[in-house]
């Protein structure tokens, strides 16, 4: 017994010593990330550690402006068919290799040509990359979409990887990523933690911050919350609106929130197989469903009014929002009239909903609202993998989906609504919309882009292939010991310059 006490005391002394020597920031993330390789990463949780490990050519500021990171600047050619990017000098990868034009060329080629690359669609406009000189690359395009490409290079596509390490590790690169970010990968215990430490040769010498960061996947938001309150975590991402009141009396924790770029929506099957006959042929049926939903009441009852009711692929406060189609008010009479007109006064359909609290509760509420218009909505709960497969195959009448959102509106609309969009499980197709979306991709001028996306929103409000319902806010719990935390609309925690008291 005495021996054990002695051992414990010795360990405690040891802990005390190491804690003083190093600052470790612990961040609770909402799920265990997938591969930590920019080419293969899909989950938002993986973006958290990747953002610390891999700098990008550009970043997006909190007001969604493009800001240089590894690139100093860019220039789009007058004909729009190429972009020249100048790189920052004296940048080093974590393996000691220099970051130069060849590394950028290697990375973009890798993103375009790796079998199964999840970055290929973001780089669809790229034909090839030329090295002009050690610090200049020219990206040659086959469609004049230079600006959109730069925004995509402010995402995972623009995370520059070390050619030496990527070649050596091959498809195991994701188990040991080597980039040029402020933190170096140390270790990963799957589902346990991901550890990174400060990179001594980081290009930005003025940068200060904590010595080590541990990312801890904790799936249950209640557990993330209690771990934050008990001091185990310093930052807990993605708390739910119902968690927030619990933190109000806690002087050690503050909640920071920011509007999220994504949206929740019900996707209707427009022409994807025989199941589309339920709702796909008559927009009046979809409009009746849409008019029966009271979005404001849902926001109050489900989310303490912390989320924003919406009806378009951008937030109502966005410059791309079409004000001609504001968030519809609930109108049961109009809904009934539409159903009568369409000859289906007792419409019945089934919606697929994942086994997840937020969407389950919302679906039940919508079910009750629709019943008042005479619509029977059956809820079929499926796990995410099954739901995705059924949506892809067209084995659905409606599906309750969620899109995480992108800084450039193209990322919120093109894949979902263009005729051949990879995410267009509705198989909705409107050539006029396609034309507008391509023009918007090619537009260099911001006001022109705004006009075009407003037009796209207006078209979608008329055709109603989906009922967009709300936009979340991202709630992050932050210990008062943390200094320098700035929330970001893309929900990714920027770790540069974070301090622990």
């Amino acid at each position, binding site marked *: 017994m005495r021996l054990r006490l002695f*051992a*414990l005391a010795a*360990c*405690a002394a*040891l*802990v005390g010593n190491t804690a003083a020597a190093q600052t470790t920031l612990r961040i609770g993330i909402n799920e*265990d*990330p*997938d*591969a*930590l*390789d920019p080419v*293969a990463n*899909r989950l938002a949780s993986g973006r958290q550690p990747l953002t610390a490990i891999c700098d990008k050519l550009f970043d997006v500021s909190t007001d969604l402006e493009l800001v240089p990171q590894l690139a100093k600047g860019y220039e789009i050619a007058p004909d729009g068919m190429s972009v020249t990017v100048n790189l920052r000098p004296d940048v080093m990868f974590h393996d000691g290799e220099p970051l130069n034009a060849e590394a950028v060329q290697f990375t973009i080629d890798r993103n375009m040509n790796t*079998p*199964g*690359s*999840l*970055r*290929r*669609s973001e780089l669809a406009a790229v034909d090839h990359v030329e090295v002009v000189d050690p610090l200049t690359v020219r990206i040659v395009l086959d469609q004049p979409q230079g600006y959109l490409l730069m925004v995509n290079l402010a995402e995972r596509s623009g995370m520059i990887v070390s050619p030496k390490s990527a070649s050596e590790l091959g*498809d*195991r*690169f*994701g*188990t040991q990523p080597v980039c040029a970010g402020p933190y170096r990968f140390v270790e990963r*215990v*799957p*589902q*346990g*933690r991901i550890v990174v430490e400060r990179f001594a040769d980081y290009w930005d010498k003025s940068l200060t911050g904590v010595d080590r960061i541990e990312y*801890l*996947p*904790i*799936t*249950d938001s*209640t*557990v993330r919350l*209690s*771990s934050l*309150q*008990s*001091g*185990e975590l310093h930052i807990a991402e993605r708390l739910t609106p119902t968690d927030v009141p619990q933190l109000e009396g806690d002087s050690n924790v503050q909640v920071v929130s920011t509007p999220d770029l994504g949206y929740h929506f019900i996707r209707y099957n427009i022409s994807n197989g025989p199941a589309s006959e339920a709702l796909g042929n008559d927009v009046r049926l979809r409009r009746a469903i849409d008019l029966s939903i009271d979005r404001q009441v849902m926001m109050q009852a489900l989310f303490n009014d912390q989320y924003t009711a919406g009806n378009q692929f951008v937030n109502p406060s966005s410059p791309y929002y079409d004000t001609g189609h504001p968030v519809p008010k609930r109108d049961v009479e109009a809904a009934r009239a539409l159903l009568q007109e369409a000859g289906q006064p007792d419409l019945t359909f089934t919606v697929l909903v994942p086994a997840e609290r937020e969407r389950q509760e919302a679906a039940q509420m919508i079910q009750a609202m629709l019943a008042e218009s005479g619509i029977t909505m059956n809820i079929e709960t*499926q*796990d*995410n*993998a*099954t739901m*995705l*497969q*059924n949506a*892809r195959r067209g084995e659905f009448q409606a599906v309750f989906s969620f*899109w*995480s959102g992108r800084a450039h509106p193209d990322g919120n609309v093109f894949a979902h609504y263009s005729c051949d969009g*990879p*995410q267009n499980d509705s198989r909705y197709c409107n050539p006029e919309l396609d034309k507008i979306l391509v023009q918007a991709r090619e537009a260099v001028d911001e006001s022109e882009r705004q006009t075009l996306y407003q037009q796209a929103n207006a078209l979608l409000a008329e055709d109603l292939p989906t009922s967009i319902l709300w936009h979340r806010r991202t709630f992050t719990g932050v210990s008062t010991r943390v200094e320098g935390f700035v929330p970001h609309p893309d929900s990714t925690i920027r770790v540069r310059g974070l301090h622990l008291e």
Partner: protein
Amino acid sequence: MRLLIFMSQRVGLAISTLVVLSAFAFMLQHLLPGDPVLAMAGDEADQQVLDDLRARYGLDQPVYVQYWRWLAAALGGDLGMSLRNSMSVVDLLLPKLVITLQLAIYSMTIALVIGLPLGVLAATRKETIVDTLASSFALSGISIPNFWLGILLVLAFSVHLRWFPASGYVSFSEDPYRSLMGFVLPSIVLGTGIAGVLMRHMRSAMLHSLSTDYIRTARAKGLSERRVVLRHALRNALVPVVTLGAIEFGQLLAGAVLTEQIFSIPGFGKLLVDGVLYRDYAVVQGLVLVSSVLFITVSLLADLLYFFINPRLRS
């Protein structure tokens, strides 16, 4: 010799069980709806990407070909690669094995230290307040759901009192103190449940044992009550409890899913849940195999113990 025959029968049965089980698990997974490649590539997936990934992981082959390939590789110690995070399944499982073993050993220790003495006490003080209290404890241990007890303990001891961490895992080699502290609450949650089961079985085995003729003989010979209980009755009563304890321990190894979820302990249970949700075939398959091997090994050891405890098997 008898032991040799006894054990070789058991080992032969174990190996054939493993083969059947792994084939069954493989087929069953492929019967689940949901496409692993779609679950993995989800948001970004165009058809070309999906096809590339399918080819890369051999998922474009018929199921029996896939199983055959898996079996051949598994015999060589290669359990394939996780679809989800590109790690080899062996690398994924080994650290989990250590974590799950730790949790199982701590929980079992708590269960034995509480359950067995309580069972003996309840039997020797039959129909007294001690018996009632012990039985109530056992009933609570069995009936209170682990997740609920877990949340309560976290609220009391982590959030309010701040004695123990609310979640997470630290390895013993890195920081023994923090590692042990992190295991206290989950081990209590799991341990009390098993303690209840052990206590009830111990009590009834003990009662049965105390009512037998040889105990009456021992008492008639004037042996002290303490000696009668501990030397004679307990030894016989332990025989069925050992088997039960082994089964309970085996179940712990197969993953204390909910408890691991609550405390974010990255053991087998959590890996299994994620593996199934993401249709990460290779991971689930590897888990089934390793859990089965563990369970069967523990059962073999229990049989062996049983063999030594129970003189009738040896004669």
